[in-house]
């Protein structure tokens, strides 16, 4: 068994009805593609809905950050139902309340405010993600 840096699993909601869902998705990509590509990974929410065993094992083994676009909190609920441990639970609406100037619009294509809101959300998560990944534990499953 190897010991090393953990990977933090990012699970955004799959919201398709409002721009906040797109912000959740965009923030997840900010983290895994730009800000922390080596220490984070995405798990698709649809796989958890289906009960995909591999995805369930990943969220059960590594710390999870959920990003939800509405108060139904689908991402958080599905991770919990899949046996995962949520390290950080974020709601886009909460972040938006602190950054009212960044009103997201557009679902297929976010406006520039929405893109900035996603980046702000992602950046706010960095201290917690870094703390989770500097803790030693079983190595990632990627």
């Amino acid at each position, binding site marked *: 068994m190897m010991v090393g840096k953990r990977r933090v699993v990012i699970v*955004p*909601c*799959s*919201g*398709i*009805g*409002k721009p906040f*869902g797109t912000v959740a*998705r*965009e923030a*997840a*990509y900010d983290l895994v*593609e730009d800000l922390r590509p080596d220490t984070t990974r*995405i*798990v*698709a*929410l*649809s*796989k*958890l*809905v*289906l009960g*995909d065993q591999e995805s369930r094992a990943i969220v059960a083994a590594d710390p999870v950050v959920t990003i939800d*676009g*509405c*108060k*139904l*909190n*689908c*991402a958080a*609920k*599905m991770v919990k*139902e899949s046996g995962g441990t949520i390290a950080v639970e974020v709601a886009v609406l909460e972040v938006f309340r602190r950054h009212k100037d960044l009103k997201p*619009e*557009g*679902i*297929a*294509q976010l406006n520039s405010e929405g893109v900035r809101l996603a980046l702000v959300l992602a950046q706010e998560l960095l201290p917690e993600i870094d703390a989770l990944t500097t803790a030693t534990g079983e190595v990632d499953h990627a």
Partner: protein
Amino acid sequence: MPDLPEKKAGIISCSGEELAEGTVTRLAALKVLHQTRRGDTVTLCLPLFLAGGEGERTFAKFYPTITVDGCQLRCAARATERYSAKPAASLVITDLAAERGISGIAGCRRLNDAGQQAVEATAEVLAGLVDQVLGRTVPPPKVMEDPVARRPVGTCQCGSGVPVTMLTINGRAVEAVALPILLDRFVGAGRTVDAAGLNDLLVQVRIYNEVLPEDEAAWVDALRLELESRSREGPP
């Protein structure tokens, strides 16, 4: 399923965040929902089958639903069938791309050219399937693009899903799935709010809702109140 007046097709995409093909499903679904078949289609976030309420789980029973999946796991199709009802039709992007000779789809966040081609091809096929499940032989006239989606009222928190009305049945708050549409149809047909009319309405309500025998009288009372309330308020 009754012959409802405003028949719409449901579209559920996997929106898979791990693969570029998941982004293709999302963007193709949105193109059909908001542009090419706007007004004829509705959607639901896939996780709401589990995280939502009865209204969400009735979605595919209520709307003939087309699922769009990015890969062979077919999460949207399988989850829709498992938690709601069998989809009327299903699409898988990897299959469609192979058929159309589109290769090299990449870019989960920003699709490359192949990904954009796949979006266009998927949206085209999806629109055809919408026409098919709605029984159309001729495609509708083209509509101007409008980024703002029309949303049905009184639906789920994410702005999509089957319309519902909250009723009080024997002291319990009950979500009556599809009731707004059924009431519209009842009123539109010029039905009278009498015992026969309410009984017919209850038959329709039962299709989408569990009505326990001991609650029948309370449902009839609640339906009468809803109809009387509508009558006072006038047409929507």
